[in-house]
């Protein structure tokens, strides 16, 4: 529901990710982080929900 | 030149002309109602606006204001040394404010500009601001300004007071600042001073007659702080309160603020934000102790501050100009007029 609300508010679904990873699943953790990083990098910098530091 | 008339068709062009030297504020309408805001180019103030939900205090005292900054970059020579954010000295004019909002500025001034300390940010903004008020010809049901030493045509704190005369404004110029603004707009149609004053007096009396309030403050000064503080009615007054900050934020005379630091990358910024005595955090000690830990404490603080502490401290009347905004906006209808009367009428049995 949090993901849905964020998406509803205009946040790209591809920037939101939920996974179950056990503390024993180190490789899965690395894979998931890599996958998300690549996906998010492809999307470019996020402009929403980011505090504007110039103000 | 005490009085001038401004033809309404000259009004907007005059304001535009003044933009060369003034930043212009005035009532602006959007989906949340009317507020005093900076006027975007080509927009005229909504002069016939109803009472704005928020007062004009934010022109001098923004809800969030950067006051100091420092770099945290240790390679810089002046790292961790705070420097003031430049004060905003740009001349500005606030158009169409209600007279009580200008009077409120004078009460707030007692706090920000006193013999011991002067708040540089507020004072600079105050110096830079010209207040052009519009007399209130039809005061609303929440207006009780006449009962607290103000009124729909009060001149205190204003630089220009205008009256709406259908196709034109009649303006009374009250200060040098007012003169400068009138000159910047190019308004120069003089009006007969005697006649104009008579007109103002008639309008004022008409308007004052429409304010029906039985608010009395005469006996507040004669009571002791502790008697009023210990009065039995505070639980009752506070019951419905939800401790939101609405009353304090909409109030033109509430000046309390919080100071907060934030770090943005390698820059430290110190802000001040409006704060509210309704919040339990306002007085919460780091130890966990809270001298005003219950909502009854906090509700009592607000009314005691406005109606007694301020009165006793400054001897300038109560800290209320009768705008009625807190009455109109309170979600649970706590009415300062009722509370004031209860305080005024309270006789200790001790």
């Amino acid at each position: 529901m949090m993901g849905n609300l964020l998406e509803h508010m205009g946040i790209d679904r591809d920037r939101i990710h939920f996974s179950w990873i056990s503390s024993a699943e180190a490789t899965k953790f690395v894979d998931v982080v890599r996958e998300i990083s690549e996906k998010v990098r492809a999307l470019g910098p996020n402009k929403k929900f980011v505090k504007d530091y110039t103000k | 030149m005490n009085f001038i008339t401004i033809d309404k068709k000259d009004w907007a062009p005059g304001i535009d002309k003044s933009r060369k030297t003034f930043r212009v504020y005035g009532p602006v309408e959007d989906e949340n109602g009317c507020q005093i805001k900076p006027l975007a180019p080509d927009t005229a103030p909504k002069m016939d606006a109803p009472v704005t939900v928020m007062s004009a205090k934010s022109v001098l005292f923004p809800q969030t204001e950067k006051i100091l900054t420092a770099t945290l970059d240790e390679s810089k020579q002046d790292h961790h040394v705070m420097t003031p954010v430049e004060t905003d000295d740009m001349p500005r004019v606030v158009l169409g404010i209600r007279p009580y909002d200008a009077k409120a500025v004078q009460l707030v001034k007692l706090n920000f500009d006193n013999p011991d300390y002067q708040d540089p940010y507020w004072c600079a903004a105050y110096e830079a601001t010209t207040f052009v008020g519009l007399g209130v010809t039809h005061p609303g049901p929440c207006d009780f300004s006449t009962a607290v030493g103000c009124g729909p045509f009060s001149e205190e704190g204003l630089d220009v007071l205008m009256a709406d005369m259908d196709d034109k404004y009649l303006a009374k110029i009250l200060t040098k600042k007012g003169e400068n603004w009138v000159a910047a707009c190019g308004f120069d149609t003089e009006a007969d001073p005697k006649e104009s004053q008579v007109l103002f007096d008639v309008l004022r009396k008409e308007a004052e007659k429409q304010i029906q309030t039985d608010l009395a403050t005469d006996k507040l000064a004669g009571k002791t702080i502790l008697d009023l503080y210990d009065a039995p009615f505070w639980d009752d007054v506070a019951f419905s309160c939800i401790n939101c900050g609405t009353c304090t934020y909409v109030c033109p005379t509430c000046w309390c603020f919080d100071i907060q630091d934030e770090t943005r990358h390698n820059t430290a910024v110190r802000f001040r934000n409006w704060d509210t005595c309704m919040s339990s955090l306002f007085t919460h000690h780091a130890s966990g102790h809270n001298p005003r830990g219950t909502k009854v404490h906090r509700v009592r603080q607000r009314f005691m501050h406005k109606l007694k502490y301020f009165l006793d401290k400054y001897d300038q009347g109560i800290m209320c100009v009768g705008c009625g905004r807190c009455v109109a906006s309170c979600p649970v209808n706590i009415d300062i007029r009722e509370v004031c009367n209860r305080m005024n009428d309270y006789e200790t049995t001790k």
Partner: protein
Amino acid sequence: MENPYLPYPVRIDDIEVATEDKSLKTFTFVFVNPADEEKFAYKAGQFAELSIPGVGEIPIGIASSPVEKGFVKFTVFRTGVVTTHLHNMKKGDLMGIRGPLGNWYPWDKLENKNVVIIGGGFAFTTLRSSIVYMLDPANRKKFKNIDVVYGARSPGMLLYREELFDWEKRDDINMHITVDGTDDPDWKYHTGFVPQVVEDNAPVADEDTYAIVCGPPIMIKFTQPALTKLGYQPHQIIMSLENRMKCGIGMCGRCNIGKELVCKDGPVFTLEEINQTPKEY
């Protein structure tokens, strides 16, 4: 226009763990611009805002004394965001100090008077400042008898222990050091709570005797009756209060007790004054 929010830059010159539980540290600051030290001229009993850029400010009583030059000292209890950050800072780090703020103990009024100083726990900082000030050779003759009652939970929780024991040896000040309890068989001072030690050891009041009380609320609450028993009138009992503060200059509005602002009209009040205000501290 002076900007009262602008702190003077200072460097942390020394950090000393002040109590055995490490919850208190004494920080010695040196002004980055020597001229600022003069502007910071203070009297014993005043406080200042310790100001850490990007973190925040905290109002702390000045523990050094006006007669000590070249530095200012503050003893800080670790409790909130700013104090925790401060406890983690290092010697040499830069930060700011804003002040001096508030009023001070009424030194003019106290001239030619007997002064009884009563403190408990870590509320001894401005009292230390006061004692050092009074014991200064230039000032000692201005005051008659000086008595000090100071208590803490245990010997290791006493602040400024070495100074306390030095003062104990002097004959121009009567020290009554006490701890709530100790298992140290060599403890040669009092054991017991401050109010009881006051009742048993503080001088009986005459019109020339004043008591300065600073400590946790519970100690203040129980010391008052002890002083009353000894004949102290409300105007002879001087107290230093604390409340949550932000601006320190009487503008931000949160620290009031009745119409008095603790930061500007206080923090020092007589009991007589406090009796006129709501007890919102």
